[in-house]
């Protein structure tokens, strides 16, 4: 059963040790929730998992294999939702979605999947509206719909429910639950709110207590 494991991870940002000797494990169908105060490294850890940044030390392994060995296949497995929503104001909602789906090779039947993705997040009526007219919540829903339009096993969600109303938050939980049911994995950072059932919580504060910055 493939799992996603991190061992003795060390993250340095701007000459400061964000966290050290951090380990985690997520298996298929599992969920890992990152908790901890601001600046404890939740976003940094998610970016390390996605491959945007490289750990100063330690190993990230997918199914026992070091991820750094083959970054291209790892990128194909990952969907990353950060704070920015990557919505082009001049493209319509549908065009934004089809672009990202096509880029991930979901070209066959992309039309059908984009419609179901828009319906899953309750914005099918906005398909032909240019991005510049969307509200923050609608942009975030479009960004989340992107990960449904082209399936990938590992979801990395950085505070997905910010700027979302209760209805949208419920849809996020539903999407996460169905993704896990199909054997997918989810790692998400959250500020309170209901935990997905059976989720493992990783408190990052424990990994950066007592660490002095070592002057560069």
């Amino acid at each position, binding site marked *: 059963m493939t799992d996603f494991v991190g061992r*003795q991870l*060390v993250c*340095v940002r*701007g*000459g*400061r*040790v964000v*966290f*050290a*000797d*951090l380990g985690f494990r997520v298996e298929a169908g599992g969920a890992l929730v990152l908790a901890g105060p601001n*600046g404890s490294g939740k976003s940094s850890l998610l970016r390390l998992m996605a491959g945007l940044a490289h750990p*100063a*030390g*330690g190993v990230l392994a997918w199914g026992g294999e070091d991820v750094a060995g083959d970054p291209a296949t790892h990128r194909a497995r990952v969907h990353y939702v950060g704070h920015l929503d990557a919505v082009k104001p001049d493209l319509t909602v549908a065009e934004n979605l089809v672009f990202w789906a096509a880029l991930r090779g979901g070209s066959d039947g992309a039309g059908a999947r984009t419609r179901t993705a828009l319906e899953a997040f309750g914005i099918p009526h906005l398909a032909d509206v240019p991005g510049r007219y969307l509200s923050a919540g609608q942009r975030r829903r479009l960004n989340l719909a992107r990960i449904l339009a082209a399936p990938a096993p590992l979801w990395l969600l950085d505070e997905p429910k910010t700027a979302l109303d209760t209805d949208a938050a419920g849809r996020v939980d539903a999407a996460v639950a169905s993704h896990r049911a199909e054997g997918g994995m989810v790692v998400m950072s959250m500020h309170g709110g209901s935990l997905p059932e059976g989720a493992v919580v990783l408190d990052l504060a*424990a*990994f*950066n*207590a*007592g*660490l*002095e*910055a*070592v*002057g*560069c």
Partner: protein
Amino acid sequence: MKSYKKGPHPRARGPDIRGAGNIMHRFANPNRFMRLSQRAVPWFAALTVVLLAAGLYLALVASPADYQQGETVRIMYVHVPSAWMAMFCYSGMAAAAAVGMIWKHPLADLAAKSTAPIGACFTFLALLTGSLWGKPMWGAWWVWDARLTSVLVLFFLYLGYIALNNAFDDPARGAKASSILVLVGFVNVPIIKFSVDWWNTLHQPASIARVEGPAIHASMLWPLLVMAAGFTTYYLWVLLVRMRGEIVAGKIRALRLRQVHGL
């Protein structure tokens, strides 16, 4: 000067520092360099003073005037070593940037960042002395001679590096971006040299006398070499001083960050 030790903290809860410790040492603990440079700086200083004093004496007093150019040939003893140092520093920056990028060693990036202003000064001096030498020789303050033009372009490459290096809030970002720039620039230097030389011959009436002309007489070679050696030790001296400055600035930044994050 003892190395900066980590404060004691409850073993049970805190993470295992050993793993992080050796990583930190390899990446961010330059104290060994600080100790070595502390000892090396006085030596380079003394060497520079001796070499430059001897060089100036040889250049201004002991060497003969040129039968054609008369006394103005003495300008060569600062112009040529400056031009050499301009090229030498830029290649040094490219090498340091490559090391910094491949082995991710922050000291290499600091070496490149510290070399840039020194190289820029030498390039400026090469241009200035070239112009002061050109006036009596060719009758004009600036001549679009192939070599002088290439040095002028090199000067802009230096300014570009320094500007990009300081254009970011996070110094690590500045270092990485300018490393890529200096590598791209370094690859382009021969292309620029080739095209400027070709452009120069296309528009250049052949009448301008070439500066080197016949092989340099031994009595003129000595001052040149001594001045060049003096410039090199000067470069190493100021390089170490500036690198120490950068490292201390890094420590100040880290301490300020720690205050902000109240670790």
